[in-house]
């Protein structure tokens, strides 16, 4: 049973998009915590 090219593209593509979003999300969290003085 072989993975199709579409499934491979979906798997890798979605993983890459989520990983690309992760730093943006972390920076948003950081700014929000900083504004609320809840960083530390």
């Amino acid at each position, binding site marked *: 049973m072989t993975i199709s090219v579409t499934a*491979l593209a979906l798997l890798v593509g979605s993983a890459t998009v989520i990983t690309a979003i992760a730093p943006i999300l972390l920076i948003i969290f950081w700014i929000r915590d900083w504004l609320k003085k809840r960083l530390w």
Partner: protein
Amino acid sequence: MTNVTLAANTGWLILALFSAIWIALGAYLGRRAVGLEGYMLAGRKVGLALGTATAMATWVTSNTTMAAPQLALQMGVWGMLGYSLGSVGLILFAPLAKRIHALMPAGYTSGDFIRLRYGKTTWRVFLVISLFYGLGWLVSMGMAGGVLVNALTGIDYRIGMSVILAVCVIYTVLGGLRAVIGTDFLQTLIILVGVVILAWLAISEVGFERMHASLLEQRPELLNLLMPAAIMFLFNNLLFGVGEIFHSNVWWSRAFAFRKGVGFRAYLTAGLLWLPIPVVAGFVALTVPSLGINVPSADMVGPLIAAKLLGTGGAILVFIVVFAALASSLDSLLAATSDLILTDIYKGHLRPQATDEELARAARWVVLGLGVVAWLLCLPRLTTLAELLYFTGAFVASTIWPIAAGLYWRKVNPTGATLAMLAGTVIGLSAYFLIGFYVAALVSAAVSMAILLISTWLRPADFNWDTLSNHREKQA
């Protein structure tokens, strides 16, 4: 053949630049690490952003960035998917972190919980397992640092290992957990951006159609969804990851350090964001047949592809990402293992009367001492030592049920917990030698669970949860 090695001068420049950044940042953040709680637990007020990033960064080791492509090259699609299931440990720890914070708002280490929940015998068995694992992981990370610096820049193993270890020890000594968590945030961003750049280049340069066609022609087994060895690896890796996270003080100290209400969200978010990283870091190895790269050593496939796609820039990118991944794990291990030594060995066994002030002073010396011990063990470059980590699957998986059940089920008794850890470890190790590495964690967890259930059924206890919150954590 593609050359992955940077000029030693470039390697030194990057090493010096990032070493200076981590030490300066650690020293700056450490200014406010006042008292024992400030130093060991960053004041117990870590927010969601830093909490999520530190969980991610610590779990992204140099293994994730280097071994994920290797596994993809050896086990195909299931290799990288199996690696990504390591995130299940982080996700499952989310409710535990919430429970830990609620039950022990003044706790310091995972050892505290075991001692108060099960008593001294179980505590000592747990400490042996936890310290063995912590030191083994620390030494293997230190060795990985030396090996990778040598492979990527040509700098001598001993010098590279010493520099990386020294940098992590210096900023951890200076700033404690605040320095560790603060640097983890930047290191997470570097790692994430680095792996995405490499993945994006691989996708745009090679494309899925060409990648798939070349694999079908040259390495069809890598696209096979029913590769038995890879499926075994998947389950073993899942349990290994759960065992590593449930027992290790690296994760417990963060549960204590996070602000109230942050633990659950931080670990859940970190687990969900970590899940795709091994796929992104690993799939680039599937471009090997398309790019026609000769891979002399599977563990260097990541740097080889980066150098092929980006030239010198690729080698620099990989080096920076690997340095960030190494530092983010090494500092956490130094801090968490030294916390265990300080609280559970020094105060717990040697100087029970030690005050918080004395412990705060001793904490820095313990980190330094642990760094020196790790350095001495790393010096001989015992590559077989890295294989020791495979054994630890049996050790750490035996702690899953005593910890999880101990946090939620008042009927679990100390004898059952001790026997579960001992028998799980021994039988798990036997399975390792008799069957193979891929069943050690699985057998250990199964045996441990069976013993815990039977002993609880035979002799149910009636543990008082208030014991955990009413104890003296701040007695000194």
